[in-house]
Each structure stands twice: as structure tokens, then as C-alpha cells.
């Protein structure tokens, strides 16, 4: 079992990779670690923040695991919805939403990111109408935070809606069987 550590502005949380469900994705991301950058809070999905992957951090993956439709159908019954998920997300330019001026220029149309759901919410996953065309996007749930997610980590994430972007580092924590 591979574990990762997420450090958001000094606050840490641990996550377990879902190697049985999406082995190729986990392998590709594991080989990219450590990763770091400035994270930005979501503005549609409630308690989610993102690390945009650009330059040497950019990762292009093929779909793996449940399709978006299966994922939506399967997870609608989860309570709390979406909490603790960490997903890889890619969408082509022009899909679903246009220019996002609050993102870096390279992400104002194409988007490549980790989507980190640290609390209740994720209405954008819950609402199929807000999902991008699955032929022009890739959405893979590849890790889950260990419960409970530390309060200081959640507080740092929540604060981004008032305080703006915060530094995030993701590193390998270890492998065990």
C-alpha cells in the first residue's frame, strides 16, 4: 500500500493510493512525486482545492477505473459525499467552462490538476449536468485521505476562500503490504 503526505501551508494529511482500483494511474503519479505548487480553492465544488499541474509537473493520463457516469451513479449514495477523495482531472480546451481568469494563463482553457476534496461538498460531481464531455476529459479517483483528516489541514484549506492561494507539497510517505 502506497501512502502520500499532503502538506498545505505547514499542515499535513496522509492519503492512501487506490492501487487495486487504478494501478496505472497510481504508478504514474507515484513516479512523479514529490510535487509542489500553489493550490487554489474551488469555486463550484464546495470543500475542494486544486493543485494545477504545469511544466514538469504536467501529467497526461488515460481513463482508468469507473467511467464518469458509473462514478456518479455509484457515489451519489455516499455519505458524506465526496469527502476525502483525491482525483486526477484533465479537460481539453473549451470544454464545459471557458476562460478562468483566476487560474494561471496556461490553465485558462485546458485544465490539468489534482482535485482534493477535503470536506463535505462536491456538488459539481453530484450534478451530471456540470460534468464535462467524458470524451474530452479524464477524471480518476486515485487516493483517499486517512480519516479523520487533521483539523489544522481542513482549517488551512477553508481559509483559502478568504486568504487566497496556499503552498501545497505532495510527497511519498512509504510503501507497506
Amino acid at each position, binding site marked *: 500500500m502506497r501512502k502520500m503526505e499532503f502538506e498545505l501551508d505547514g499542515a499535513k494529511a496522509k492519503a492512501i493510493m487506490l492501487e487495486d482500483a487504478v494501478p496505472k494511474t497510481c504508478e504514474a503519479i507515484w513516479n512523479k512525486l514529490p510535487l509542489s505548487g500553489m493550490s487554489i480553492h474551488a469555486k463550484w465544488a464546495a*470543500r475542494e482545492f486544486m493543485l494545477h499541474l504545469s511544466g514538469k509537473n504536467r501529467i497526461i493520463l488515460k481513463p482508468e477505473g469507473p467511467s464518469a457516469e458509473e462514478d456518479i451513479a455509484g457515489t451519489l449514495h455516499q455519505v458524506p459525499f465526496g469527502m476525502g477523495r483525491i482525483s486526477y482531472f484533465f479537460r481539453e480546451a473549451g470544454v464545459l467552462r471557458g476562460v478562468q481568469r483566476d487560474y494561471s494563463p496556461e490553465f485558462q482553457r485546458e485544465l490539468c490538476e489534482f482535485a482534493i476534496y477535503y470536506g463535505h*461538498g462536491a456538488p459539481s460531481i453530484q450534478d451530471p449536468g456540470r460534468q464535462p464531455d467524458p470524451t474530452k476529459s479524464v477524471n480518476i479517483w486515485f487516493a483517499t485521505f486517512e480519516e479523520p483528516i487533521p483539523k489544522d489541514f481542513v482549517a488551512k484549506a477553508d481559509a483559502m476562500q478568504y*486568504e487566497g492561494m496556499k503552498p501545497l507539497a505532495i510527497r511519498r510517505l512509504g510503501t507497506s503490504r
Partner: protein
Amino acid sequence: MSRKIAITLGKAKAKAELLDEDAPKTCDLVWNMLPIEGKTGHTIESGKEVFMNLDRKVKLVPENQTIHEIPGDVVIYFKQTIPPPAASPRPVISFIYERDAQVRSLHGPVPVNLFARITDGLKEIGDEAVRMRREGYQNMRISRA
């Protein structure tokens, strides 16, 4: 002649016209609060919306409500906290600065009282909203103009 308000966010200023005919009680309620200044943030569930927390009790009656906001709308409503569900919704005043916005809770759209429209400075205040989403928010101030 309509009453006007000034909205200041960081270095940007905008003017809005109160919708006295469509939302008279809400306009009076807000007008009598002014000037107000409060903790300001960017929505995490509703898209291109900036809100200011109102640190006071507010008695709001449904008036000129909408669930289909457009850029330039200035609204007042009770914002639900995500989570805990036990926390009471808190009163906020917010404005929509670009397309791709709908005031929502986890359960869908939230009706809001639309009481003013920004007539000047929407681009400037929208630019400031975008900058502050990356760099952090300062208080927003609303006063009579």
C-alpha cells in the same frame, strides 16, 4: 430617482442602483444598514460570486427573488455553511462579477433577494475579485452614494 450605493473592494470601486420598485423592503433594509464593512471572501460553491458576511441579525422577507443571477446583480440572502449542517445559515450580501455563477447550497440553487444592479465599475471590481482570489481578500465596504 433611484438610490445608489458605492461598493469598494480593494482598489476598485463600483456603483449600483437600488431596485426600489421591485424590492422596496429589501432596499430599505440595506439602505438603513449603510455604511457597512465586513469580512469578504469568494464563494466555494456558486461560481463567480464575492460575498461579505453581515455580522448582525437580519430579518429578510422574500422579495424579487431569483435563482438565475447574472453579472452585476447585487443580492442578499442567508448563506448555508458547508458543513456542519447544524450551523445556522448566515446573512451575506454578494455580487456576481462574471458569467458561470449560480448561488447554490449542496442541495441546489438558493433563492436570493435581488436588490441592486451594478451600473458602473463592474469590470474593475471583477478584476479585483479575480486578483484577490489568488492573493487573498480585503474587507468590502458598501456605502450610500
